[in-house]
């Protein structure tokens, strides 16, 4: 599904260069549920942006669903992003002046689907996340958990092969977080590949595979338990925003 080989990404200003990704190599198989963790500034979000075709990279190669995306035009990248990838953000990122229905409709609009098909997909997605009765609600009228479920509905409405979730439970209490994880697992069971960036060891433990990123490098993709034990032994626990 996702194959990065020696990908590097450097942010440059007049004064400094920041190596966000260094020879980053990772392969995620189709249908996998992968958790990505690492300290703040380690490159997790950059990885997610590159994987989601929101940012370009300087060197290396990247294949998404078998297609080399290294030198695609903006139009082609946007089309691929729209068709293959669903995003879920920590801050939900719903559009405040559109109702729930129209929020879920956004990616489908860019795919130029006919109204009937859009309607069918939106209904199905909202039904899956348990918000079919709230189509006319505005985001501000929903709780955080509900807003994230709308964001999940928006991510899956286009039936993407890959969902990229950046700390999707970061703004939720533990009960809501569990519900969201349940949903993601359910979606994964339906065949969608999920890459989840998280600081929460409990959530990461629920993934099939764990990736640890430090200084822009994949340093460990060992089972989570072994890594967490090593971390606790070394420096204790704690998390900050990626």
């Amino acid at each position, binding site marked *: 599904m996702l194959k990065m080989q020696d990908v590097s990404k450097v942010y440059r200003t007049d004064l400094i260069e920041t190596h966000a990704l260094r020879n980053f190599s990772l392969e995620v198989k189709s249908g996998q549920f992968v958790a990505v963790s690492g300290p703040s500034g380690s490159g997790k979000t950059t990885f997610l942006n590159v994987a989601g075709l929101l940012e370009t990279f300087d060197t290396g190669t990247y294949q998404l669903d078998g297609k080399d995306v290294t030198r695609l035009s903006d139009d082609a990248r946007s089309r691929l992003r729209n068709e293959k990838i669903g995003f879920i953000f920590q801050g939900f990122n719903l559009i405040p002046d559109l109702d729930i229905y129209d929020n879920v409709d956004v990616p489908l609009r*860019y795919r130029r689907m006919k109204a009937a098909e859009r309607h069918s997909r939106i209904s199905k997605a909202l039904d899956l996340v348990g918000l079919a009765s709230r189509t006319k609600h505005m985001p501000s009228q929903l709780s955080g958990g509900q807003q994230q479920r709308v964001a999940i509905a928006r991510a899956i409405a286009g039936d993407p092969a890959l969902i990229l979730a*950046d700390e999707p439970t970061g703004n939720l209490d533990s009960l809501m977080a569990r519900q969201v994880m349940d949903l993601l697992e359910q979606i994964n069971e339906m065949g969608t590949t999920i890459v989840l960036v998280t600081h929460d060891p409990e959530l990461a433990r629920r993934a099939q595979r764990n990736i640890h990123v430090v200084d822009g490098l994949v340093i460990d993709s060992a089972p989570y338990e072994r890594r967490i034990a090593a971390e606790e032994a070394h420096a204790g626990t704690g998390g900050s925003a990626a």
Partner: protein
Amino acid sequence: MLSYYLRLALHSLRRTPGLTCLMVGAIALGIAACIVTLTFYHAMSGNPIWWKNDVLYAVTMDSWDVNEPYDSQHPTLPPPEMSYKDATYLARSDIPRHKVIMTELAGMISGAPGQSVPMRVMTRATTHDFFAMFDVPFRYGGAWRGNDLDALPEIVLTREVNERLFGGSDSVGRSVLWNGNRFRVVGVLREWHPLPRFYDVTNGAFAPPEAMDQAFVPFSWVTALQAFPASDTSCDHAESVADYRRFLASDCIWIQMWVELPSVARRERFQAYMDAYWAAQRRAGRFPRPLNNRLTDVGQWLAVNGVVSSDSRILLRVAFAFLAVCLLNTVGILLTKFLRAAPLTGVRRALGASRRQVFLQHIVEVAVVSGAGGLLGLGLGALGLEGVRALYAQDNTYGMLAHFDPVGVVWALALAALSTLAAGLYPAWTIGRLPPAGYLKSR
């Protein structure tokens, strides 16, 4: 997608009603200012007989003093009028398809049924080709016929005069007293007020209707009644014009002459005819200045006579500068507004919107703002013109010019469209180029 973008634009504009009003208002004010000045400029600079521009020519000869040009500010230009002897000689030529010599007379009409007091009418004494040459439309009857040198006492009235004298009915065949002489009405015009009055800019290209030609009589009646022109007569040297015969024989200029020359060959022949006459007269001791016989088409005629004042041009520039300032403000507001909403754009990009789609979405929003500004500007422009009419209620010249014609509407729409491009391109392009990733996290 257009309807979707339109919906998004309305959402976005509703989100910031204050800014929206500010932008619409700025564009509307700029467009209104341009409409008002453009309407005046267009009315003043328009060629009211453009379809004959390449066949109608004002005839001028430089008969003036050798030491002093007629117009010291434009020393190369010959006088705009001619003397009686020159005009009548040139009018004998059969080279032009139509030829007209004319002057403006003050007249009094009386004797119409029910008319209690005489009516003052500005009267154009002209030859009968005038009507065919300038495509003058008739409601009743037509031009007088026959010999220009010995025409019958016949008169053509404008629609307005016929309305006042005969209640608008067909007055052809009826009689009126013009300056105490009985004239038979042979024609009544439809509405006809060419602006500018190209054929006689000397007596005012933008005179109000009551100072424009209200009646037309055959030119031969000028001499028959020994009438003097209504406006001043220009003479390059002191001449005794104590009696009418001497006046006609003098070098004083008071007659306008126009010819219709439908081909280059005819034009060249008439030019040669003029030049030959000039040479003969020069040999006889007249025309001391260098050869400067001119056939000037309508467009050039309006230009060389400065019909469009420099004030109008300056005002037009000021109005466009004002529009530019309004647009610059709008660009600033749009840029701020779009950048403030950049995180939302970032979300849309993440969900699959391309740069092009983001650009189009924002350009549609700008088009809505500009469209609203254009419509409001149209209304304000109409109000502005109404205000000008009210302000110059005593001066019908401005009243006549301050009409909101279809050209004004087209200009307003074109300006609105141009404003869309001018105000919206940069902000829409900028927002489309923003890297989405940076804004996603900030939300």
